[in-house]
């Protein structure tokens, strides 16, 4: 069976001129490879500046990789071919509140990807928007609202709605659950798991909450300063971390797995 998403030898360094320390180039991500099947979740953990968001940006094509390539269903993804990519790989950002255009209503925000990527009529689009809003726990009447009228957690749901409305195959969640309230968060986790079951979605979950990582992911990858320290089955890795850095992460969260 071929993997849904295959990443080989992917790396990124940022070229800078005169930021703080006048460094010429920052290796944000050293070459790494992995693959994901449908119905599976890969978690990526690591501290700030470990390159998690960089990896996410490379996968959605928001940045051009320095080396390496990405294959979806065996097909190479070209940088710059947004149409091909944005239908199949969607991303929910860390600070999604700020990525929503404040001058558009929710309806307009959700309509945009539909108009660009599908041939649905206006009526069908509206119906789909309503359904999607309900799927993420919002109301149809929210369509006429502007982003500033929502709380942080609700904005996150709008981002999720925007991500799933095109029925993608891979969704990247960059700390997307961090800003949510616990009760919304567990609703969202249930929702994401349901969607995974229904639509065969693969998730890449970037999160620092190991509780969620344990519950949600099949495999996990530990990043530190742009390097992969450990990859493995989530349960195994959490139970038996090999690297000092991973142990520290686990300690930091007062995190204990039950002995069974």
């Amino acid at each position: 069976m071929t993997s849904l998403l295959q990443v080989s030898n992917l790396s990124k360094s940022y070229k800078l001129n005169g930021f703080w320390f006048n460094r010429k180039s920052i290796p944000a991500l050293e070459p790494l490879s992995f693959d994901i099947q449908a119905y599976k979740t890969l978690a990526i953990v690591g501290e700030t500046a470990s390159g998690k968001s960089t990896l996410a940006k490379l996968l959605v094509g928001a940045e051009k990789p320095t080396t390496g390539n990405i294959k979806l269903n065996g097909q190479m993804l070209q940088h710059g071919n947004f149409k091909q990519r944005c239908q199949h790989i969607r991303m929910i950002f860390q600070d999604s509140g700020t990525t929503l255009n404040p001058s558009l209503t929710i309806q307009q925000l959700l309509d945009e990807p539909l108009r660009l990527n599908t041939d649905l009529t206006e009526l069908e689009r509206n119906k789909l928007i309503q359904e999607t809003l309900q799927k993420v726990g919002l109301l149809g009447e929210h369509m006429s609202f502007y982003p500033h009228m929502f709380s942080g957690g609700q904005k996150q749901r709008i981002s999720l709605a925007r991500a799933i409305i095109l029925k993608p195959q891979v969704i990247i969640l960059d700390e997307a659950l961090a800003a949510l309230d616990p009760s919304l968060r567990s609703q969202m986790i249930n929702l994401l798991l349901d969607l995974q079951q229904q639509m065969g979605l693969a998730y890449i979950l970037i999160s620092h909450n190991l509780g969620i990582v344990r519950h949600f992911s099949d495999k996990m990858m530990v990043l530190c300063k742009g390097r992969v320290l450990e990859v493995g089955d989530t349960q195994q890795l959490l139970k038996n971390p090999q690297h000092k850095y991973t142990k520290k992460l686990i300690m930091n969260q007062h995190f204990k797995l039950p002995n069974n």
Partner: protein
Amino acid sequence: MNILDIRNLSIKLLTSTTPILAVDRVSLAMKEGEVRGLVGESGSGKSLLAQAIVGVLDDKWQVDADRFHWRGIDLMRLSVDERKKVISKDVAMIFQEPMACLDPTTTIGAQLEEAVDDEQLTGYFWQRKQQRKLAAANLLHKVGIKHHEVCTKSYPHQLTEALCQRVMIAMALAKRPILLIADEPTAAMESTNQNQIFRLLASLNQLKNMSILLISHDLENVTHWTNTITVMYSGQFVEAGTTQHIFNKPYHPYTRALVDSSPKANMQIPMKSRLMTLPGSIPILQHLPIGCRLGPRCPKAQKACVQAPKVKNYHGHQVSCHYSLKGSY
């Protein structure tokens, strides 16, 4: 003794039609040296309450309280300006969005120097500039920023969120507050940074006996750092008590749901299984249910719940529910 004693504080949003009761009779008391968590979902009025305490709400909002004492002074009897003066001397607040609160056009150093209290400067006026610089550097060291030179010369947008948050804390400390109100100081930070900020706050609490009101939407996040917790929902008081009680034996169905919904507190459930959660979401201000506002989402709701419940006190563990879970333990 309670340094802060608030009883039945209400905050109304004045609109062109009827005013909306955004915060409905919430009580809150803080002892000296206490670290209290104020927990509730987004939109439950935590920030409003905090802003009402420090008096920074604009005149769209109307604040009433049965009792509002700060260190024995009855604040409700003072004029708005006098109240602000008393509070701003002793209470500092870290706001939710650090980036938005720092002036983007001024360097961090200049902003910090401005925050330094004149009373702390002892020298002649020609020495003051230097003293201010020193004080600013000291403050940065205190919040764990070692290379203060880099930081003071930067503009806010050049720093990461976590660094900005530290700078905000440093500014709050410049006043040497008795009470620090920290509104979601670590939202959206990674765990290592979160822990650093929490540890910093904990050490300030221990060394300076500074009381801290720690606002968070995430119950599991604050349990390690607080002595007591107050829970709010949709502008109403839910439950207050020691952290132990709240986390291990919550009396209120809402708190119970918060604890049950946390994947970290529920390690024994199989992976990818459904997490327990309340249906629906928090009501918007324009459509608040009458009586207990949890009613439409509450698994235990009955007819009586259309009347707002009274707060019951069991040995300092207060709960506001007609059908509390006290009997179930």
